[in-house]
């Protein structure tokens, strides 16, 4: 080997070792994350699928009227290459109609839960209608129906699995009823916002970027997540299938949730929601 080639190869090898890219030889640098895609943390749970994500483009949104379809992306585990294994478990369709201050939402979610030791999955379906009012889109009334199928493909609905819950919020009490019988009741003040309606909060551009927004979140149509706070985090840029794209990031924290990031495009539409295991990715 020529001296020049030897020096060149040695320098390259040394550089790779020092960067930790030759694991067998590299000294373990415990202060560095092993997933090289963890920056920024807002997108970390879905970095496995981001290279395939082509952010949808669309005509300008008419105020208060929109329809968003998200894929439900599971963070499953970290693969040997340092990237998460992301799995598409179904979809969530959110439709909003009405005026900017009085919204009517229709929700359809179809999620497959893989079954251990069984080929196929068990499909769980959620259908909801919600009435919201006011500048913060606080809920007034809602109905949520859920049911699931037997495990397997094209299987029938499981007997007794269908349940419909009706909810209402009068500004001081949340009440859940089933077949007109009271199921649960909680005291509450301040806005009550369904997780599915947070896109409208962001799309409407009514939030003050310098002040945290406080609310209670209605999750799944039947559980409360109190003391929620939504704050603007700043601009964020990352690689997608369409190249490097600029977004804005909002951070939600509160009781009963891990930090949630809402990542909005230039029209303030949330294209990505990352939580932990279950994340949303806009499909159209």
């Amino acid at each position, binding site marked *: 080997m020529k001296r020049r080639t030897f020096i060149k190869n040695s320098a390259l090898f040394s550089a790779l070792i020092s960067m930790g890219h030759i694991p067998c030889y590299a000294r373990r640098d415990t202060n560095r994350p092993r997933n090289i895609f963890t920056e920024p943390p807002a997108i970390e749970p879905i970095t496995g699928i981001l290279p395939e994500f082509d952010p949808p483009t669309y005509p300008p949104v008419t105020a208060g009227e929109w329809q968003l379809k998200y894929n439900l992306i599971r963070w499953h585990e970290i693969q040997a290459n340092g990237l998460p294994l992301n799995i598409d478990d179904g979809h969530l369709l959110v439709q909003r109609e009405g005026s900017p201050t009085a919204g009517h939402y229709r929700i359809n979610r179809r999620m497959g839960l893989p*079954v251990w030791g069984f080929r196929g999955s068990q499909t769980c379906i959620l259908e909801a209608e919600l009435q919201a009012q006011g500048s913060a889109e606080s809920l007034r009334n809602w109905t949520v129906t859920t049911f699931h199928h037997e495990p397997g493909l094209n299987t029938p609905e499981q007997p007794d699995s269908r349940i419909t819950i009706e909810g209402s919020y009068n500004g001081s009490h949340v009440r859940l009823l089933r077949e007109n019988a009271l199921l649960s009741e909680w005291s509450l003040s301040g806005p009550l916002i369904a997780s599915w309606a947070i896109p409208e909060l962001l799309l409407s551009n009514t939030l003050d970027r310098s002040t945290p927004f406080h609310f209670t979140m209605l999750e799944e149509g039947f559980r409360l997540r109190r003391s929620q706070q939504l704050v603007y985090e700043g601009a964020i840029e990352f690689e997608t299938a369409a190249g490097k794209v600029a977004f804005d990031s909002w951070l939600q924290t509160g*009781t009963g949730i891990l930090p949630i990031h809402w990542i909005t495009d230039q029209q303030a539409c949330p294209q990505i929601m990352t939580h932990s295991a279950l994340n949303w990715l806009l499909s159209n």
Partner: protein
Amino acid sequence: MGPPGFDIPFRVWNAHTMNTTRSTPSDQPVGSPSPGNRPRRHSSSDNPNIVFIHTDQQHFEALSAYGNPWVETPHMDRLVKEGHSFMKMHCISPICVPARTSWMTGRTSKETGVPVNNAPLNPDIPDLAQWLRQHTNYETFHTGKWHIVNRSERESFDRVLIQQGPRFGEQTDPDVARSAANVILNRQSDRPFFMSVGLMNPHDCCYTAGAAGGLGKFQLADRLLDKCPPLPESFVPDHPDHTRHTAGWTEDHWRFYLYSYYRMVEMVDEYVGTICDAIRKSESADNTMIILTSDHGDGLGFHGRLSKGFLEDQSWRVPGIVVFPGRIPADVRDHQHLICTLDIPATVCDYAGAPQLPDTPLSYSWRPILEGQAVPWRDYVVGETSTSYLGVSFRDNLDTKTIFYDDGNVDVYNTAEDPLEMNKLQGTPEGDSIIQRHRGWFRDYLNHIQLSPLPTWDHLRPNHVRHYGEYLAWYERMRQELNNQEDKS
């Protein structure tokens, strides 16, 4: 302190003398049940519905009702208020599959042949659901996490609502809770029912992006530090058992782990609320017993440990709450009795009017305690682990604790004075005295269990055989040594 009639004077009592609520050993196979090993206490119409709710990896103090200021659990707190809290509740083995196999069989992990995760249950051992179906008219339901290998929940229960799916509570717990609530509210049958509800969280702490490779959202630690709990007094930053996930964590990252963990406890608390609200609104609310516990705890930074598999209290102890409105006193904090998740089958069988599961001498029915009867109770409780190390722990009624290791070492604590297990007493006169007493418990324990032979069935992995073989050899050695010592004395 409990209600009147609850204060049982301490007495040293030998486990094998108990005969009021325990089983008569039986070698009846599953398929050919006897008419019953002992008379039923009640007619079937008296038998309550029993809803057994189990969370996953919940620390025994991860409830706001017990004074933890870093978590809000209003629904579990309500159960505490309405029921009987066992403050000294332990799992038999602080890892998912061994713990779950034991609470469905009443047998220890060395009897079931399940020392580690993914080890298969000895097919000759019946489980609680099978037993109820054979010996009672109970209808049996399961939904959610099961995690017993070599025994499908569909084989054991009449109906499975949501079969164990992906390993994330965030994704499955809402549907699991709804499925349970649905059956409870819609059911028309006059038959009593037993329902096992497997909620996953806070087990998601094992899989958060940060905990399973890369810092992920743990990078938010510095921004949320004011909301993150402080590290425990016993925290050490350089514990040798640190997993690859925690290597390089700063103290802020550890604190963010605690923050995330408690949010997951809050997540699952809401779904416990869903199930319990349904029970309270159901037609059989007055005749439904709720048992809430967890398969094991979590290290939460105590001793610099994370997750489970070790025998320090954070991993070994679990919450334990029983609610039975109008039948047992409410708002009881029972600091007296040593309790084990191994007792669940005995308790369920007792209330269901079934004979006890066969060969379960260490599974005690809680019924006399719950109903305020002064009965002799166990002298010690035992824990076993094959994860991290091979060990056996004992806690006795004097609140002393030992962890015996297979290399001959023993850790000794006086947990009445040192609840964080920071002061090892081995080598002191007090420690030596405790070891001597606990060697007696070890001997008693070994003489009460029937070790499952080295498994030969399918699906074995080398580590199962190695762990199990090492355990069998160690136990046999200890049995001889301890019995010889007893003979000489």
